[in-house]
């Protein structure tokens, strides 16, 4: 669930046209079956739409046997100077220097 929230946040960042801060509004999660322990998991996230500052996302998580969970989320975007992206970039640049 944590990984799917992160993946959908990253999908929103890639889909948005201007740098914005984003926060999860709602996350609905369905677990079809427990994931298998021995394999890593893959998460596929898709930003279906960004409309009026709200991003709508769908996501699936799969292991070697197929999809084991799905999620639907809404994120709110807040364009502004103290954006998440700028702070993240500043943190990355700070680490590199």
């Amino acid at each position, binding site marked *: *669930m*944590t*990984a*799917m*929230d*992160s993946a959908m*946040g990253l999908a929103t960042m890639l889909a948005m046209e201007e740098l914005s*801060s984003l*926060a*999860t*509004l*709602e*996350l*609905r*999660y*369905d*677990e079809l079956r*427990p994931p298998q322990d021995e394999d890593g998991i893959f998460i596929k996230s898709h930003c279906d739409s960004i409309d009026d500052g709200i991003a709508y996302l769908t996501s699936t998580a799969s292991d070697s046997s197929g999809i084991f969970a799905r999620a639907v989320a809404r994120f709110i975007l807040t364009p502004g100077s*103290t*954006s*998440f992206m*700028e*702070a*993240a970039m*500043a*943190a990355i640049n700070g680490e590199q220097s």
Partner: protein
Amino acid sequence: MIPQSAIDAIPYAEQLGIKLHDTLDSGFVFKLEPESRFMGNPAIEAFHGGIICGLMDCAMTVTIMCVLEKAEPPSIINQTTSYLGSASLQSPVYVRAEITKPGRRIVGAYARAYQDNEVHLVAKCSSLFKLVERLRQ
């Protein structure tokens, strides 16, 4: 089962560092201390939303195990989480988890996450869990 034993039975709960904070008539209150690894938004130094929903998931699982006296963690069927505000990394997050429907096979649970003021919720969620059935000897 005591809550700490149930937390120890769930590797993710143990890894997060969830602690029991209070025992209520209807459930439990758990506490998660802020750590830099939980940061979601560096601009406002807030907890990541995924940590909050994972915390509520663990809190409900532990509550079900303790209240219904189950040795095995129940498996989650679905969870609907509403995020109502940002959770600052300056103070701990508390989660109050309660059982709403103690069924024989399906259990409904509800959790509320807050920080300094119990009235100002950070997030709330409701979930359904399936109890793990033990094979009869």
